[in-house]
């Protein structure tokens, strides 16, 4: 408060270097930083420090609870890059990511376009699409796990009723990815649709009206006006869903029917974070798990950056 109050006096007191002035000048310069400091102090404690410490741990043969730990340099990383299970996990992660994010963003934009229309009971519809997001993820995963049960699951019952072969959702790699992606889509599509909807409603009416006068139809208006003007929002949605999609953990963890973290009998749906978790808390190999964490961190930065660049170019 003092900072604001003393500001108008600045011109006058500048010629009068009393100690009181020095104090208030310090106040002006320092206090804004003090006000934002809590966040950064906390971030340093619970965000930055673990991040750097993980990098440190990844250079050791560090077994959880062991008496001694040995420095092994970059050995964890070189093991990781020749570890078939890691590449398999990376493939699974990208496969599930693509199966979830691509349909999700497309459906979210279309859904937003529908919700933007003049519907009866507008708020109810808009709230409705958010409901899956409100439901507990764990409950959701258990329900989807039962739906996609290989022997007694509802989805297989429906498939056999309409004459299609049963799919072993646990054993079949692609099948398991579809099952997990459907969980992600169910939960996040509505959430993303609302974000897109908010941006859509903020588009000035004049632009659309001018296009109508020029004779543009609804489809043309959607692709030539709505979509380009949604660009920043779509970039945001894509970047956040990239970060979330590459870190996917809870869904595949709970999809494992007996509660392990192998991601299927042959790691059919073990994602990178699930492999990280298994290394750290089932094999107690903290050093290796840290190496996975850092590698994943780098991959996410690269992919999010790539997506950012691509979407900016594409929607321009």
């Amino acid at each position, binding site marked *: 408060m003092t900072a604001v109050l003393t500001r108008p006096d600045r011109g006058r007191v500048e010629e009068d270097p009393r100690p009181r002035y020095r104090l208030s000048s310090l106040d002006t310069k320092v206090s804004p930083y003090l006000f934002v400091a809590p966040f950064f102090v906390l971030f340093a404690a619970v965000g930055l420090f673990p991040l750097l410490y993980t990098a440190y741990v990844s250079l050791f043969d560090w077994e959880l609870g062991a*008496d001694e730990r040995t420095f092994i340099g970059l050995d964890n990383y070189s093991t990781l890059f020749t570890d078939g299970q890691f590449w398999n996990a990376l493939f699974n992660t990208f496969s599930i990511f693509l199966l979830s994010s691509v349909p999700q963003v497309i459906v979210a934009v279309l859904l937003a376009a529908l919700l933007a229309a003049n519907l009866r009971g507008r708020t109810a519809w808009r709230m409705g699409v958010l409901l899956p997001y409100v439901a507990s993820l764990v409950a959701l995963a258990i329900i989807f796990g039962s739906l996609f*049960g*290989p*022997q007694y699951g509802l989805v297989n019952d429906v498939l056999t009723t309409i004459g299609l072969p049963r799919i072993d959702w646990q054993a079949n790699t692609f099948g398991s990815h579809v099952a997990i992606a459907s969980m992600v889509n169910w939960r996040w599509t509505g959430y993303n649709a609302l974000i897109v909807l908010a941006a859509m409603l903020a588009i000035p009416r004049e632009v659309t009206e001018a296009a109508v006068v020029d004779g543009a139809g609804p489809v043309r208006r959607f692709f030539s006006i709505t979509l380009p003007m949604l660009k920043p929002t779509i970039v945001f949605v894509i970047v956040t869903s990239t970060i979330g999609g590459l870190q996917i953990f809870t869904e595949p963890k709970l999809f494992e029917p007996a509660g*392990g973290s192998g991601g299927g009998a042959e790691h059919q749906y073990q994602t990178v974070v699930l492999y990280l978790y298994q290394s750290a808390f089932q094999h107690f190999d903290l050093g290796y798990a840290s190496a996975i964490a850092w590698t994943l961190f780098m991959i996410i930065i690269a992919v999010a950056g790539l997506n950012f660049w691509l979407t900016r170019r594409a929607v321009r």
Partner: protein
Amino acid sequence: MRHRSWVSVLLLLTAATACSSGGAAQDGKTELTIATFNEFGYEDLLKEYEAAHPDVKLTQRKTGQAEPHHKNLFTKMAAGSGLADIEAIEEGYLSQVMSKSSQFNDLKEIGPQVDGRWLPWKYDAVVKDGKIIGYGTDIGPLAMCYRKDLFDKAGLPSDPEGVKALFATWDSYFATGDQFIAKSGGVAWFDSAAQVFNAMHNQHEVGYFDKSDKLVVETNPAIKSDWTAVTGAVAKGQSAKLAAWSKEWEAGFKTDAFATKTCPSWMLGVIEKQAGPENKGKWAVADAFPNGGGNWGGSYLTVPKQGKNAKKAAEVAAWLTAPEQQIKAFKAKGTFPSQVAALTDPALLDSTNAYFGDIKAGALFAERAKKVARAQYKGPTDGQIQDTVFSPALLSVEQGKNTDEAWKTAIAETQKVAK
């Protein structure tokens, strides 16, 4: 985000202050904590101990399940602080604990004289380099559970005496399985390959590791022959292919998916819960197990070196695991005692199970406990090899993978886990 960080920091601070208590309390009492999971049946016993020892105050930290309890245990061992004065350890995690035995007190040194209290195999499992790390609490002796009605339908003997011959050896068990599935109309013989394999595996003197902690999974002929027997039975259709503890496995008890189940004493409760009242009288338990006896489950009480009052903690642990107290725990929560004297206690011998046709379950499992030949030596990553390598590998065979390929994968992953 920021709000959440604040809340978590506050929680951490409260947790830290809550945990840092211990040692001597203001009123001169020695405060001891005991960390358990599931149900140990110790609630009344702790009060009884406090009444008899006015200078000791006991606090129990209960965790719902074994997995988070042990995750917490290993994390705090790594952190060097935060463990309870007495920590319970389940048999499945014992190999991991024994490989870090230097963090636990030698109870032979600091505890009271308790020689000969336990069944020898229960005791031998916690001895390392002459040190004893834990006091045995309960056990899970193995018997065979089976469906009487399905046995009748398939023309097999179904009375408890008649089935004994069928369950005499693993050979006779799998041979009967062939007979059964030929007439059962789609009902499998057992629930899951891993459930059978693990029981077979634990009967051998040498398992995945030899006594010098060398990995012998490839050279131990017993492992390969068990593998061949179980995967052979899977190929013939004896397995219901239900991964243990999955929702579908639980449903399998109700839907007549399989006819036999490797059955530790505590499994009777699981079957009763999953099969439900409508199947009462269909399930039976035989006083038999292929190739002798076996054990699955049971726990120990340990005294980590982190605690300040190790001697007093050891006294409490020794008192809790005495036969008289474990019988009370058995009455309270049905934990099956591991103490020799407790196995002849009338309270145990006269206990019956109504769901399994009023059978004298206590006496039956007491007999089964005596049939366990030895404690298999467990290497440092034994539990992980069972849970994260061999069980999934057998599941992959059940899902249709070629047996030889699955074996190769299992060997490769075992070497990775054991490195």
